[in-house]
């Protein structure tokens, strides 16, 4: 009987070793899968764009990429460049969806339910944090990502990392940061800019109130147009990001009101396009407004990154100041230079380099784990597994 047990154990060990070998081969041959969960959003959202950007970076590294969506009839967003959305899309409930230990799943903060549902899957799961509000909205009080077995996190700024660690602990997670990249098609116009103001915000009431306050205080500028950055079709629709960039650079200034933004992509797009952003400071100060020392400690606010205020009711006055300066042609070239300096740190090229490093890190980590498993005697592996189970 014990001999039979021994044979069965050895067979099981050898099957395990074969599985590990197979997974390792798949990683080495770049046959492992990267699965990116994407929330459905037909209206432009920097966070959705960013997930597709990650997916494309990984695809360019030579790995298989699958986009996981909620519904089977999902249509890739039209406002994102086609090159970024040309991936296999699969529904999370699709029976074809199979994952192995060699695979990596990236789950954005909005999907805490997916984090929970996938906690028994054998793949590596990484949380992608772009918005603190989305994260907290989807979490039940008292839970965090570690409750779902997620310990690896990618996020878009040091500020977000620090904020996350403040509330969820510094030791439970390994958080990696990178800089978002603004596409090169956000560029300065070679034509003179027009007296039109782009206006973007999360809360339509705040946008409408701003416009009304501005026209009430400055009726002499009733001819000025605020551009909501939608298509001119009827009904107006969201623009493709490349068309958005083309429209943006022709306008001389832009207003941005988004209290809950966690990064603030739009002001950066403006700075890169030579458009003066007039912004209401969100609760989380954008990373690009923070000057840090060599150790990464915040020192002071960056100067010349457009016009920022923490008083909503000051926005119309600041808008007027910028408009008057534009009409008088007295906006200092140094403002455009400093805006360009700020934005130049956020290129897609740099972003891609940083992401390649992060994702390669996950692959290396997985590879060495499997290699270690293959070189460790089966008894030890079983012992480790037993201990792991006990801990859980």
């Amino acid at each position: 009987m014990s001999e039979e047990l021994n044979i069965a154990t050895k067979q099981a060990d050898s099957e395990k070793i074969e599985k590990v070998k197979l997974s390792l081969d798949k990683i080495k041959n770049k046959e492992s899968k990267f699965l990116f969960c994407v929330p459905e959003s037909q209206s432009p959202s920097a966070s959705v764009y960013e997930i597709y950007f990650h997916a494309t970076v990984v695809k360019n590294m030579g790995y298989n990429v699958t986009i996981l969506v909620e519904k089977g009839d999902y249509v890739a967003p039209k406002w994102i460049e086609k090159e970024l959305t040309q991936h296999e899309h699969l529904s999370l409930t699709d029976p074809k969806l199979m994952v192995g230990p060699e695979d990596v799943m990236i789950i954005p903060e909005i999907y805490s339910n997916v984090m929970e549902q996938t906690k028994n899957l054998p793949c590596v799961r990484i949380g992608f944090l772009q918005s603190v509000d989305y994260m907290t909205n989807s979490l039940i009080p008292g839970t965090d990502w570690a409750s779902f077995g997620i310990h690896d996190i990618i996020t878009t700024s040091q500020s977000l990392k620090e904020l996350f660690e403040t509330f969820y602990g510094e030791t439970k997670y390994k958080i990696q940061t990178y800089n978002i990249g603004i596409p090169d098609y956000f560029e300065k116009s070679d034509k003179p800019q027009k007296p039109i103001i782009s206006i973007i915000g999360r809360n339509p009431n705040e946008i409408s109130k701003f416009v009304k306050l501005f026209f009430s205080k400055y009726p002499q500028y009733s001819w000025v147009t605020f551009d909501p950055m939608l298509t001119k079709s009827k009904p107006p629709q969201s623009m493709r990001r490349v068309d958005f960039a083309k429209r943006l650079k022709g306008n001389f200034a832009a207003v941005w009101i988004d209290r809950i933004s966690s990064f603030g992509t739009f002001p950066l797009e403006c700075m890169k396009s030579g458009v003066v952003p007039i912004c209401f400071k969100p609760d989380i100060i954008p990373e690009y407004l923070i000057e840090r020392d060599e150790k990464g400690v915040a020192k002071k606010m960056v100067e010349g990154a457009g016009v920022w205020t923490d008083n909503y009711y000051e926005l119309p006055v600041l808008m007027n100041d910028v408009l008057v300066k534009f009409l008088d042609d007295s906006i200092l070239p140094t403002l455009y230079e400093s805006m360009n300096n700020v934005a130049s740190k956020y290129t897609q090229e740099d972003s891609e380099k940083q992401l390649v490093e992060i994702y390669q890190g996950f692959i290396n980590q997985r590879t060495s784990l499997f290699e270690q498993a293959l070189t460790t005697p089966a008894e030890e592996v079983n012992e480790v597994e037993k201990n792991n189970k006990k801990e859980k």
Partner: protein
Amino acid sequence: MNISVIIPVHKYDDKISTYLNSVIESITKNVGVTELPQVIIVYPPDIEKEIIGFRDSQVRKYGDKFSEAKYTLVKNEDKTDYQSQVNLGVEYVSTDYFSVIEFDDEFSTTYFKNVEQHINTYQDVDIFLSMIIEVNDKNEGMKLTNETVWAQQFVGENGEMGYLNAKSLQQYTDFKLSGAVIKKSEFENIGKYKSNIKLSFMYELLLRALNNACKIYTIPKIGYKHLATRPDSLFGEYSKSMSMNERKFWFDTAKNEANFINDRVIDTSRITKQIVT
């Protein structure tokens, strides 16, 4: 520089001398250009001595920065109304574009930089209107002019922002050509200014230009400062001496005459006299 500046002067005294000083100063203060424009002063024979004296004083003041070669003095022995003065001045323009500045007005310090930039960008545009700030005698801003083409509601659903269109111009007449940059060839093609039209001659030229498929665009920068309250200015005189009926007559006439290239004789007997009852 591919622009010349015409300054029509019909009389000369100390006040006008001061104004003219400011005009030349505003030209020489311009930044962002490698060259300053040619200036053409059109004047009647009776003030020739004063105009030459003025030119010489400016040459001494600015030296090489704005030398004698920059001035073209044109003695006008014919009619000295504004339109005739400008039309004569245009004959001496050797550049593709010209602008007209009234002697009591000023260019902004980036006027020529912006004009050059727009000429290079919008080569199909025939007339670039300048955004004008109207000031009072205390140099306080009163209002803007020519800015309305930048209002979406003004250009209409099918109109392009920044461009003047005939439909809108029929409804809103307050556009001025002071400080505008005009393509010389198109100005001549459409028949120049009409001296037979009073008050609404600029409006008539704009309508005529649009009727002849010219493109008119407002540079969205305040490029020109206009003293709106000088009592003896041309339009100041009109506002004092013309009844509302007469003003209406001239704008109606402008709409009719804009269909003709020639400066036709206007039958002013149709102007109805105001009857006080």
